[in-house]
């Protein structure tokens, strides 16, 4: 289990780096929410280890890096991971398509929450592209899931049987 935790942390760090990696100007608004996607996978796979607390701290770190209000990413992250956490047994047996639909709505709520905070601060973006990360993240979910599952199997399960 510790090995799983370690590989989980490594992938979360990897996702974090993808989240702050500079992109060309036209692509910035399309950047998928890598950190949330990876956290969703681990909350589904090892709910006992990676849950809302890890999500909250990761969200806070993202807030510091993005220069947003402390807690703006964290609160959405906690809510998304909470729903995944309590529904993880159902989600595990669902098809990738069904998972993607659930994730789409969760990410949409997260984005709306963030928009609400931005609005209260007086700098709400006036572009529909604000919801683009939700769509790109949903589209990328199947690949994220498969890659992370393969990683987990390769690094933890196989070693267990040796």
């Amino acid at each position, binding site marked *: 289990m510790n090995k799983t935790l370690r590989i989980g942390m490594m992938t979360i760090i990897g996702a974090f780096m993808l989240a702050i990696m500079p992109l060309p100007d036209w692509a910035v608004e399309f950047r998928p929410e890598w950190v949330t996607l990876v956290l969703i996978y681990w909350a589904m796979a090892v709910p006992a280890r990676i849950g809302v607390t890890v999500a*909250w701290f990761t969200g806070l770190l993202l807030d510091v890096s993005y220069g947003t*209000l402390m807690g703006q990413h964290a609160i959405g992250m906690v809510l998304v991971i909470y729903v995944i956490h309590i529904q993880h047994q159902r989600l595990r047996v669902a098809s990738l398509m069904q998972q993607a639909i659930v994730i789409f709505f969760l990410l949409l709520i997260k984005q709306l929450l963030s928009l609400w905070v931005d609005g209260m601060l007086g700098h709400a973006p006036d572009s529909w592209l604000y919801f683009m990360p939700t769509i790109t993240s949903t589209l990328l979910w199947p690949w994220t899931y498969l890659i992370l599952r393969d990683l987990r199997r390769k690094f933890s399960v196989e070693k267990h049987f040796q």
Partner: protein
Amino acid sequence: MQTLFIRGPSATVRMAVLVIASITLMTVDHRWHSLEIVRSALSSVIYPLQYSIDLPIRLFYWADEALSSQQTLLEKNREFQARHLENRVQLQKLDIIEKENDRLRKLLSAIPKTTERLLISEIINVDVDPYRQLILLNKGSSNDVHPGQPIIDALGIMGQVIHVGPLSSTAMLITDASHAIPVQVNRTGLRAIASGSGKIDQLNLRHLPQSVDIKVGDLLITSGLGGTFPPNFPVAIISKVERPAGESFALIEAKPHAQLDKSREVLLVWRNKAEQAEPVTKADDIADGQNADADSDKEQSVTKEKRSDQRRGNRE
């Protein structure tokens, strides 16, 4: 079944606690700005990640320099030398003008002119919130950087530092939607506030009457009011003036003078102590009051206005 494996409080309790904690943090951060210590500590945790993201880009620039041919280097060198000579000739004139200015200021017993200390800082190439105009700098509190510190590039004002970590700091550009900078039209001396639009190439001048004397191409400089920015630095150039019928205010847009999206290096500005000589109301006391601390921005601007009135009076 779940309870067999999950220890500690249930996920629901934890979620509720963390949501309340997030809301509290957001409120405290927004209202009182008292989370700088936490932010600074967390920023040193993520600095290695940010640095490693920036490293390949830095290496690329380094390789570009290291692998450039001798010919191009020689050419560049020659070009720089020519420019250096040009600048020095102009500096000579400036030096004389500065001395003359100092003398005249002494005659008027006005505040001595201020000097600034500069430090070059590089921009760390990581992305921040795409809907804010923020940049990350590679200098932090270990270099004496403090929140509210102005940053400039070779062409003009870029913005100000908002969060400081031990090794890095976050700065807000003047075009951020929540930023505003007190400016002055160079041609007429008209004072205004240039607020950010959220677009990298646009500033708005709001609440100026229709009859205002301003036209496309006018240079906006910092007025120094408010005390954050040093006076007389170029900020923007007026790009659009419209006077829509039926509106009480003119619609004025300006284009930032600094290269906000192209600069790789910025200059951090420290202002010397003489600048903070406030509050003094009598011209005679100015020489004595230089070490007094500024009480508030408002008072500072008020006394400055008084002072300029006095100067005008003296001239008459």
